[in-house]
């Protein structure tokens, strides 16, 4: 990491595109007092229009595809997208299912992948931190 501190807090919007809720529970676990992600300034918000980062869990079902696209479009620039869990990365156990549009990166560009089924909260927090670094670098114009 090149800098000592981040410019500002990171607001994350969490969208579930057909997950089994395993990843969601781990995300909540990352916010509990044991891990306490909010002490770093990482906060879940209720609207993508307030968010800096999108956190996507689950493979993208047919129903959720256009909604995911819309949510991505509604997030203000600059933005980063995190994909949490095997399902979002490759489809996981739902791979090649008839009702999947595909992994998340078929629909929107993904910046950070956090593998695991489900990933541990530490992994999620680390992923968020990486996304954060990328976001700040994009803002500085240093990201190639």
């Amino acid at each position, binding site marked *: 990491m090149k800098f000592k501190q981040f410019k500002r807090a990171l607001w994350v919007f969490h969208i579930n595109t057909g997950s089994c809720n395993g990843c969601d529970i781990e995300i909540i676990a990352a916010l509990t007092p044991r891990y306490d992600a909010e002490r770093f300034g990482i906060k879940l918000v209720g609207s*993508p*229009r307030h968010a800096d980062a999108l956190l996507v869990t689950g493979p993208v079902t047919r129903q*959720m595809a256009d909604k995911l696209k*819309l949510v991505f*479009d*509604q*997030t*203000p*620039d600059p933005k980063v997208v995190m994909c949490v869990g095997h399902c979002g990365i490759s489809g996981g156990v739902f791979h090649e299912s008839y009702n999947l549009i595909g992994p998340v990166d078929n629909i929107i560009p993904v910046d950070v992948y956090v593998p695991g089924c489900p990933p541990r909260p530490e992994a999620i927090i680390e992923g968020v931190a990486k996304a954060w670094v990328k976001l700040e670098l994009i803002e500085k114009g240093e990201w190639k």
Partner: protein
Amino acid sequence: MLTLDSGSGIWTPILWLFLFVLFSVIVLWLRGFGRSDYKKGTDQTMIFFSGNMEPLKDMVHIRSTNLYWGFTESLSVVFEKLRKAHTGRINDYVYWFVVVLALLFIIVILPGGGLQ
């Protein structure tokens, strides 16, 4: 001249206005911290409706009939009685006038208390 003396307190609108302007400036200053870097004219200005497209404007607006519904419903014991009392019959208008006159007679005249 600027202060209204109410006997047990004072009211100075100009002072209030001064404070109002002061706090408005503070609020606007704080509001300036909000982000304005979203791109206008794109989906980024759209209303977030859980990822769904926004419904027709007619459906979004909360009409007056829905406002305070819970309040009136929970106090319907009172409100229904009041509503039923307003029958809209001209006889009842006269009835209330006569009732009030009769009550006034009872209150004012029978104890002999109206005038002294």
